[in-house]
């Protein structure tokens, strides 16, 4: 069983420290959620784990591999993909080109094409728009595209930064449903979410961050039992 672990991560931008030593762990085949108020450092933490932002202290590990020693473009080759906030699709590349970028780290071009064909069948809205520029897709379709793109490299862990943000209620449910399906293939999910009400039921474990520090960790049941946490951070959800 694979584990993705962040060990007292300290990071920030310029001279400004944003994340002050946060530890967490995510298991393969499980959904681990990070909640917390706006601007508390959730995206910053995810970027640091994925190597997109240098860590100032601590380290992220995938099993025995220290990710924090690797340049960002090597992290995906270790089996970890970050889907950044907003999805991070390339608007001026087509749907197919975006998916191919998802498989860029894989040397075998034919393998990539085969995987894309297998994947795209599960996303009918994308299959119909292969040559459409990603920027011309609806918000929901772009969300599907970024999710599908993250899967092309067949990662062991996917970090998702607010995958359901800005989507219609129906699309929020579809997105979270698809994410749940991924765990059945053994993929580990570490996810930042604002739609707490919808994300809570699918979470196996959750962390609450505030002002760059960990304020809570436990199972969803633990949170529900904690009146204070519920009132302060979950808006009574």
């Amino acid at each position, binding site marked *: 069983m694979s584990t993705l672990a962040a060990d007292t991560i300290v990071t920030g931008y310029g001279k400004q420290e944003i994340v002050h030593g946060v530890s967490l762990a995510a298991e393969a085949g499980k959904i681990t959620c990070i909640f917390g108020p706006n601007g508390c450092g959730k995206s910053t933490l995810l970027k640091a784990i*994925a190597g*997109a932002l240098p860590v100032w202290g601590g380290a992220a590990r995938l099993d025995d591999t220290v990710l924090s020693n690797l340049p960002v473009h090597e992290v995906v080759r270790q089996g970890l*993909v970050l889907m950044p906030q907003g999805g*991070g699709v*390339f*608007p*001026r*590349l087509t749907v197919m*080109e975006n998916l191919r970028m998802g498989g860029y780290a894989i040397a075998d*071009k034919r393998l990539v094409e085969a995987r894309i064909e297998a994947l795209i069948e599960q996303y009918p809205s994308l299959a119909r728009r292969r040559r459409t520029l990603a920027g011309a897709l609806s918000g929901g379709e772009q969300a599907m595209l970024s999710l599908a793109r993250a899967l092309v490299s067949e990662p062991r862990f996917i970090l998702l930064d607010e995958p359901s943000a800005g989507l219609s209620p129906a699309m929020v449910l579809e997105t979270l449903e698809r994410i749940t399906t991924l765990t059945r293939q053994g993929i580990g999910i570490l996810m930042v979410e604002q739609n707490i009400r919808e994300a809570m039921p699918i979470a196996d474990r959750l962390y609450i961050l505030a002002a760059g520090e960990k304020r809570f960790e436990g199972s969803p049941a633990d949170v529900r039992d904690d009146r204070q946490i519920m009132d302060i951070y979950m808006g009574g959800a």
Partner: protein
Amino acid sequence: MDLFLQTLLNGLLIGGVIATFTIAFQLTFGVLHVIDFAVGGWVVLGGYLGYYVTALLGLDGFAAIPLAFVLFGALGYLIGPVLYNVRNSRTARPELMALALTFGLFTLLRGGMLTAWGFNTRNVTTFLSGESLAVGPVIVPLIRVAAAVFAAAIAGGLFLFLYRTRYGLAIRATAENCHNAALMGVNIRRLSANVYGLYAGITAMAGVLMGAIYSVNPEVGLRYTLFAFFVAVLAGLGSVGGAVAAALMLGVIEAFVSTYVGSSYSLLAIFATLFVVLLVSPKGILRRGL
């Protein structure tokens, strides 16, 4: 009427050659976010290579084209990481530092060439030099036709590379968003070096062609840098599609002003056009994505 057609054709042919290096210039801006002041320096280096290939080796000037790509491509590849480091350094204004660096590179190239070769104007001679072709009433110098054909081949090759290969896709993705491209596994630093090398190589090849059409001396570099800036402003910085149209337009403006007004006014006309375009539409008039 004949003169009009002749001028138009000449302008378009020259514009095609200008397009090759301005496309590469735009690509470099897209990937490295650096406005390369040294662009004219690479053009002149290519021109001199063309001259020396004929003068010293006794080869046809066209033989310098592949040589220019390899030689100056390699040099660009070595300079690329330096530029990348400066552009991504933690100084207060890295974009200005990078511009200063390319300005320095330009000055160094120009000064070096003046010292080494003096202020002698050189020509690149090819087997087509002096030949011309009569198409009805219009007479076109064959060298211009050949240069435009080479230019089209170079630009076509570049577009094929960008749109038909995996690495080309990675370059386009990086030009769009380098952070997301890095997350997909693209080594941005190495890609930047490759793109700068590609750009320097292509620009030097265009320089060989320019040297065959006109002539070179160390001072003409500034003119080509201004051409690239003109195209970048007209097309919108970083836009590759618009660069072709803008370069053709530049070639035509330059040809008409030289023919009907006088060649000493052509830079003036180019600046006047720039000025009007910036007044009317500060983002450029041909803005289109990569």
